[in-house]
């Protein structure tokens, strides 16, 4: 195992808009990094750059203290698990798993030893003489994992390895993979578009969009303090609710103003932070267009009417069991609130909506979280 450092890593594809642009990240040895983002965001390209399957246009890749940027894949000391597993149909499970060792001239005895140890770890003992075609999807997945393990690489790379499995097996493999990573103390980079995988597996999650790294942080930090509007909207299900408006100052207090809604008071701490950024406009100073974001669980829905409060109508009620999702219409804007499962509401009802100002997220029109505001969350 080794650390992994990407510096200014960029990849341009001629004739295509997105590649990877100036990705900087450092992953400590033995950590699990998830690259998360929608299709085409550059996460797989980043992984392929680390693997050496693509040549970067700029930037460097270091594994441990070795600069591997110019090295071919086989000299990088990495192993990769592919989405389609890439198991060779003409080889047995044993041959597939020992392929890399054989190519590297490892003796037959040593090969058998490594394969049997990995097979035991993965519960593949009885399958070593089968062909991949005679295995289930989950078993093939584990063989692909086994092929990576036997080489004891410095860094493991995973390209959406669970996406071909059914939901139940996927949950099991998430757990198994995480256990294995901790057992081996391995450094792993894992690409996925599934936020559940990212949240449950990663020590660090790097969210990418349009080829750029939006934010890298531990999962809960990412959830609680999304640095950009994109991160805020991508993580969380149902997603964060947004409202476009402007900032307004009234004495020492700061408000979020929407033309058709009562103004929303923002916490004191926010005002202090923003007044400094006022001088360095346009970073979210008063009068500037701004986006307010609030997670569904930070919205309270009440049936009693209160004047000078935020009002809306109940469009749809979705009971899930442990909670109920209430779809609200607020002057043409659609919000979703996560409420108590036994809340007494009916469709079409007028309700009072209150939000916890301390859990509000603000994003300036340039789509980054206001730095001062993020600080208040720590």
């Amino acid at each position: 195992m080794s650390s992994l450092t990407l510096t200014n890593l960029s990849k341009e594809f001629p004739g295509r808009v997105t590649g990877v642009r100036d990705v900087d990240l450092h992953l400590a040895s033995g950590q699990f990094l998830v690259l998360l983002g929608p299709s085409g965001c550059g996460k797989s390209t980043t992984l392929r750059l680390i693997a050496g399957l693509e040549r970067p246009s700029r930037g460097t890749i270091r594994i441990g203290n070795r600069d591997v940027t110019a090295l071919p894949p086989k000299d990088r000391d990495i192993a990769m698990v592919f989405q389609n597993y890439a198991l060779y149909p003409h080889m047995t499970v044993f041959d597939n798993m020992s392929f890399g060792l054989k190519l590297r001239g490892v003796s037959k005895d040593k090969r058998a030893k490594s394969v049997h140890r990995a097979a035991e770890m993965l519960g593949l003992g009885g399958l070593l003489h089968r062909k991949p075609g005679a295995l289930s999807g989950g078993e093939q997945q584990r063989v692909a994992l086994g092929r990576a393990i036997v080489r004891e690489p410095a860094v493991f790379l995973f390209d959406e390895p669970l996406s071909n499995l059914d939901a139940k097996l996927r949950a099991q493999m998430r757990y198994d993979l995480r256990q294995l990573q901790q057992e081996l103390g391995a450094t792993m980079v894992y690409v996925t578009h599934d936020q559940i995988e990212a949240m449950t597996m990663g020590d660090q999650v790097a969210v990418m969009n349009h080829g750029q790294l939006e934010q890298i942080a531990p999962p809960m930090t990412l959830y609680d303090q999304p640095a950009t509007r994109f991160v805020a909207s991508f993580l969380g299900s149902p997603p964060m609710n947004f409202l476009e408006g402007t900032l307004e100052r009234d004495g020492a207090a700061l408000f979020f103003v929407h033309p058709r809604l009562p103004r929303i008071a923002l916490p004191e701490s926010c005002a202090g932070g923003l007044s400094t950024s006022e001088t360095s406009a346009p970073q979210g100073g008063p009068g500037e267009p701004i986006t307010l974001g609030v997670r569904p669980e930070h919205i309270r829905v009440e049936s009693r009417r209160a004047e000078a409060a935020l009002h809306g109508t109940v469009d749809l009620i979705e009971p899930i069991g442990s909670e109920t999702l209430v779809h609200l219409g607020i002057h043409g804007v659609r919000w979703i609130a996560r409420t108590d499962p036994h809340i007494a509401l009916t469709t079409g009802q007028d309700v009072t909506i209150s939000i916890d100002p301390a859990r509000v997220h603000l994003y300036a029109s340039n789509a980054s979280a206001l730095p001062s505001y993020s600080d208040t969350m720590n």
Partner: protein
Amino acid sequence: MNSRVRGGSWFALALLLPAALPFVAVVLVPALQSIYVSLETWTGYTPDASYVGLRNFVDLAHDEKFWRSYATTVAYMVLGGVAHFFFAFCFLAALTHPRFPAKTVLQSIVVVPSFVSVVGVALIWQRLYHPSQGLLNRLLDSLGFARVSWLSEDTGLVALVAASVWAGVGSQLLLLIAGARTIPESFYEAARIEGASEWQVFRYVTVPCIHDVTAVALALWIIGGMQVFGLVQALAGPTVPEYLETISTYQYAISFNARDAVYLMGKGTAMAVVLVASILALLSLGAVMRRRTAVDRDPSAAAR
């Protein structure tokens, strides 16, 4: 339930009829007829024919010329097969190599000759092989070597195979390329990450992954190679020398060639029957060997 099944099978038969009728008329009946003709004396031009039992086959068994043509055909098929597939795999290795330059040019050079008709191929190679005016002998002249009589008994078969490779390796290659295109890119990438050199990628990934396509290409070659006629007839004909005579050219000569003014349609048809039987035997042998290796490679395949 029963009547539904019966109705279903009648319906299936009715659907088969439009395809089955022409098949019976133009394939099955002539095939059975030819077996019958092989048991007759018949010139093919006169109505008189008499049943002679297996005499045509006994004749063939005692015909030294036939056995020689048989041996030449098998030699051509084996030597040609080795040469065709050796070159086809060499070209495939180049075309699947990620850094091989000018892939399109190479592919065109190799594939275009397979568009040339067999007589065209023979004309080109006759010129190359011409004893005094041919390019090859003029090349030998200029280098100070003695001339070679290319289509003579010593080198004739090799010369034939060379022309056949030039004309035919392209179609072999196209089949192999089509097979290689179905290999997922991740198979190559996984091998490169695992530590394979480009040669090892070809040896351990490309070749085994197109095993099925190779078997089909090989079967097609065996069929075509055993039946070889046009190239030999056009390159070494019109009277093919005995050392280059193949089953088909000999069959042609005695069936309806006026070469010796003999028309032995019965004997010629008997040769056709022997040829078909030989091809079937070879393909069956291949199939049995394939099943053996498949079981050897995957014991669970035996149960299937």
